């Protein structure tokens, strides 16, 4: 593995992220809108169940949403790099395709985790009580999920040549992934067919793992859907698979 190459791919992404203030602002604004406009509105319809209010219930999902959007955007920037030529500078260098994928996935991981941590700081306003261990747990899960979703985004990006496909990805992949992740409503209440789709979604396991750590005492419909070890196992397994597929897909030559 080429550590210098991985480092500089991450550093470039990070530098551009810090420079592009509008991206950071919209990245933080989106979860706030969902939490306080949608969440607060829905709280009037949905009574607290098993000691968990609706706002508290969707908080893990909102963290998941933050990660989903920023990881996918970061990885999909590969399509822009292809379109604007910069990808060639990377591809013609003596760097293995595997290192490129790791570098890109780590870029998404770092940027997403930072945003998730900013959103996480809202927890006291929702009446949540998180100890230091829970907070560390949440951050670790966010990091793992970010890596997994970023790697998934890279696999997608290798199949698209121009960013005209961006709205397709947005509407037919990102939005369904969000709604079918247990973020807004529990997976156990979904119809069978959607439950099946949700189980294929890497974000589902991330949101579920976060529910375990954020509201560990929840019972009833708002409690987590899977065992926490299953969640983490699936996330890690999917990450490995996505990195391997991404590396192979990058290897393709005309």
């Amino acid at each position, binding site marked *: 593995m080429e550590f210098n190459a991985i480092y500089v791919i991450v550093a470039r992404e990070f530098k551009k992220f810090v420079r592009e203030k509008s991206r950071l602002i919209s990245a933080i604004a989106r979860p706030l809108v969902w939490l306080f406009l949608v969440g607060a509105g829905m709280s009037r319809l949905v009574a607290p169940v098993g000691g968990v209010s609706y706002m508290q219930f969707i908080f893990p999902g909102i963290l998941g949403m933050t990660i989903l959007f920023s990881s996918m955007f970061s990885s999909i920037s590969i399509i822009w790099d292809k379109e604007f*030529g910069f990808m*060639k*500078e*990377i591809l*013609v260098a003596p*760097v293995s395709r595997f290192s490129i994928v790791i570098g890109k996935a780590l870029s998404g991981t770092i940027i997403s985790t930072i945003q998730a941590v900013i959103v996480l700081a809202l927890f006291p306003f929702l009446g949540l009580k998180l100890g230091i261990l829970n907070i560390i747990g949440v951050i670790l899960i966010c990091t793992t999920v970010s890596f997994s979703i970023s790697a998934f985004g890279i696999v997608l990006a290798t199949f698209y040549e121009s*960013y005209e496909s961006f709205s397709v990805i947005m509407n037919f992949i990102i939005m369904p992934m969000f709604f079918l992740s247990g973020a807004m409503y529990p997976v156990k209440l979904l119809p069978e067919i959607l439950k099946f789709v949700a189980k294929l979604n890497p974000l589902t396991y991330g949101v579920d793992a976060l529910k375990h750590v954020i509201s560990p005492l929840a019972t009833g419909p708002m409690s987590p859907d899977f065992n926490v070890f299953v969640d983490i196992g699936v996330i890690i397994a999917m990450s490995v698979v996505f990195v391997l597929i991404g590396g192979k897909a990058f290897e393709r*030559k005309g």
Partner: protein
Amino acid sequence: MPIIKVENLIKKFGNVTAVNDVSFNVEEGTIFGFLGPNGAGKTTTINILCALLSPTSGRAFIDGHDCAKESALVRKSIGIVFQDTTLDKDLTAEENLIFHAYLYNVEKSERQKRVDDALKFVDLFSRKDDLVKKFSGGMKRKLEVARGLIHRPKVLFLDEPTLGLDPQSRTNLWEFIIELPKKHNVTIFMTTHYMEEAEVCNDIAIIDNGKIIASGSPAELKKIVGGDVIYLKTKDNLKAVDEVKKVLNVDASVKDGEIFISTIKGDACIPELIRTLGDSVLSVRLQRPTLNDVFLKLTGKEIREEGGSGSDTIKEDVRAYRRRHS
């Protein structure tokens, strides 16, 4: 041993044969020109040499490494300036070069020095902290050449380096490129469809429709169209023609009030003409064949000059616009 060796290279895209049985060698330390109209197969050949494309058949070697099998070694030995810019416009000039230095694993102790030297070499040191999107086309090209040299490659590929530049930037870039083999100990492989630009090359291969139709030094190629032409005006053209034919033993005729003389060494011929004809000479003009004439003679068509890069820039602007507003 030649630094680039290409043997019977063929590349097909579906039923399009972009490169059709091409073979050539490039000697170390020279400037090699790959000439041909748009769509001739120049970029495809470069992509194969850079291990970005696998050939359908045939082999290519750079510094003894097989481009299809030893891509890592090949990539270490080459630098490339692609036809379309591959700079990150949202990074500064210096950041683009630093990125390159890390990517090619340049030693830590060397990194900053090489980047600074490269920036100074192309006169962009004072602009190092400017975002690349503020640069002109010529500045971007020079920055890309400088970047391509940072890891000290043995071969530098330049794919249509002057495309889309104004005449002054083109001249300026050429003066800079011809210095590279000596200053940086590098072999230059360049493509262009501006024939006149290839005059600076030590060797040239002309490619059309995927096939090499001629190769050699510029002087050798020009022999294909015959020698120089001297145009001469005298007080009495008819009398002068006879005299010239007799004394100089060359082919001469009168056309449109001028004497038209074909010869191999036009420059050496002129003093002799003056000596022979003396005071009756009114004007002399020497025309040497250009590589354009060579191409015309070989293919029966002009190399088209298309405003390729102009429309590319528009395309890029449209994309950038859509990107901002999507």
